[in-house]
């Protein structure tokens, strides 16, 4: 599974794609099972230069209670910093935040699909 993420241009907020809209919570992200629609969405996002910075696809996996980004880095983006649980998206709490906070393992430091540096 994949999801599409970016930072919003005007405030840097982490956002996720859902059928042409951008939402702030990972639980609202559209999940792509197939590559083609995922790449199509990424293409749309890359063309939208007035609202987004650096959109990219991330790997999403099953996690206890739901789904979560495979990469720890991406889970931190979807939650907020672990030294300040009152900052970032996690501050609002909720079952979806709990799923992300409990997910672990198999993380790559970069969550970006097709962007692993080989140099």
């Amino acid at each position, binding site marked *: 599974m994949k999801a599409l993420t970016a930072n919003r241009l005007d405030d840097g907020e982490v956002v996720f794609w859902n059928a042409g809209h951008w939402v702030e919570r990972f639980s609202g992200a559209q999940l792509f099972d197939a590559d083609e629609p995922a790449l199509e969405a990424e293409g749309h996002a890359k063309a939208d*230069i007035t609202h987004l910075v*650096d959109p990219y696809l991330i790997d999403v996996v099953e996690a206890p209670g739901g789904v979560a980004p495979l990469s720890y880095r991406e889970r*931190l983006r979807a939650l907020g910093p*672990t030294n300040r649980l009152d900052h970032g998206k996690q501050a609002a709490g909720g079952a979806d935040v709990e799923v992300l906070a409990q997910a672990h393992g198999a993380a790559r430091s970069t969550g970006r699909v097709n962007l692993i540096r080989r140099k």
Partner: protein
Amino acid sequence: MYRYDAIDQAMLTDRAAEFREQCRRRLAGEITEDQFKPLRLMNGLYLQLHAYMLRIAIPYGTLNAAQLRTLAHVARTFDKGYGHFTTRTNLQLHWIRLRDAPDILDALAKVGLHAIQTSGNCIRNLTADPHAGATAEEADDPRIWAEAIRQWSTFHPEFSHLPRKFKIAVTAAAKDRAAIKVYDIGLRLHRGDDGALSFAVHVGGGLGRTPYLGPLIRERLPARHLLSYLQAILRVFNRHGRRDNINKARIKILVATLGAEEFARQVDEEWDRSDKAAADLPDLELARIRAAFAPRGFETLPPVSARLAEAKAADPALARFARNNVVPHKQPGYGLVNVSLKAPGETPGDASADQMDAVADLAERYSFGEARVTYEQNLILPHVKLDDVPAVFAGLAAVGLASANIGLISDIIACPGLDYCALANARAIPIAQHIATRFAAPELAETIGELKIKISGCINACGHHHVGNIGILGVDKKGEEYYQLSLGGSGEDDASLAQILGPAVPAERVVGAVDQMVEVYLRERQAGERFLDTYRRTGMAPFKEAVYADAD
């Protein structure tokens, strides 16, 4: 301290106005991110994991009360009410909105602050001994020379597109509180028997992927030739630096490849054929800068404060604070008061807006309106009467800033790590929090004595792990956070690079491993030995054995 003149001020105002227009064009979609990114980076604005991060320069770590209050105001108004002081003595705000950035730069410019030279392949914001102008050990006030370099290097057209970023540190004391040997150029001022000032010039130090201690390439550079000599070094770097490979582009690689002797020869050759007078600082300008750092109007006081002695006798916490955080001043009856940003369990280097305001108030009332930032991520009130130490202690305690742990095991350097930074592989802050909490008991920390732990969340080494007595480097091992431990580093006058202890350990083993190493030290140490001294005498073996004894 130095106040920006009309030229400096106009430059900042213009720069802020220019960036406002650049932001407007970006938000309107008139320029792309690829076009905008270098512009925002030149104004210290990075995009990190959760938001934009603004890195504000604090030239040579010196702040006045109005500037500190402005930092508090910006943190409160435009961020989440706090800021993070870094190992480069800058302040980073981690939750900035692009649309607010122009207003922030305007607010900063009004008090002579900015984010220039905090990114890009230019000469970066300078660092200097945070005890400058207050310690009896110095040959001269290094900030005079740091300010001269700042003026010379700001927007220097020849050095705005170097092969890689370039960092300079200046001290004038034998005890190195500016980590000059791990800088691209490290300068140490010396005063000869004839009164003449000269610089010892170290070049090619650095941490990161390939750590080096900078070799000495010139022992006695006449101080008046500082700028022409720096120009010669930068010209050699500009000519031969490895622009083809970002991992080999820093000057340390060039110096190591050529050898210090050959590098020095090329610098001398360049220097000899350059027009020194065109680059060197005119005496008149040096005198103008020097006047700005003229000694304060200190009172004549007895060297020992009866009031402080009495207060210490009545309050063991104050006595501990005075013992660990207050350092002798050149002026009898005064002291430098270190303000620890390392309360055990808190984020190293973080200060809330209220705390910054409180330190600004204390600076104004008790320290000639001055504060300093150290590369160890603490603050200093540099000119406090010993009689006033109890009042300063009370003022700091009221805002949670009275931790009496300077130089002790809980005074840990940590970079923002994976909690914030787009480059990090692992978190650094929680590791620091766990270690500091483990050793939070002040008696225990004092029993252990000087022990410098430095933690980086990736190989770029912003947390200086290579020069930690215990260095901790976060690595990504098959997708999990692991930590590579190293021992025996020092970033001070007895500088050395830490050696790797053994295989990296998982996060939950780090505190236990530190505990085991501390136990070895307490068992092995001889009278008067710091952790570093014991390690240097015994070598790695007993520490390694303790940490890995139970490993399969």
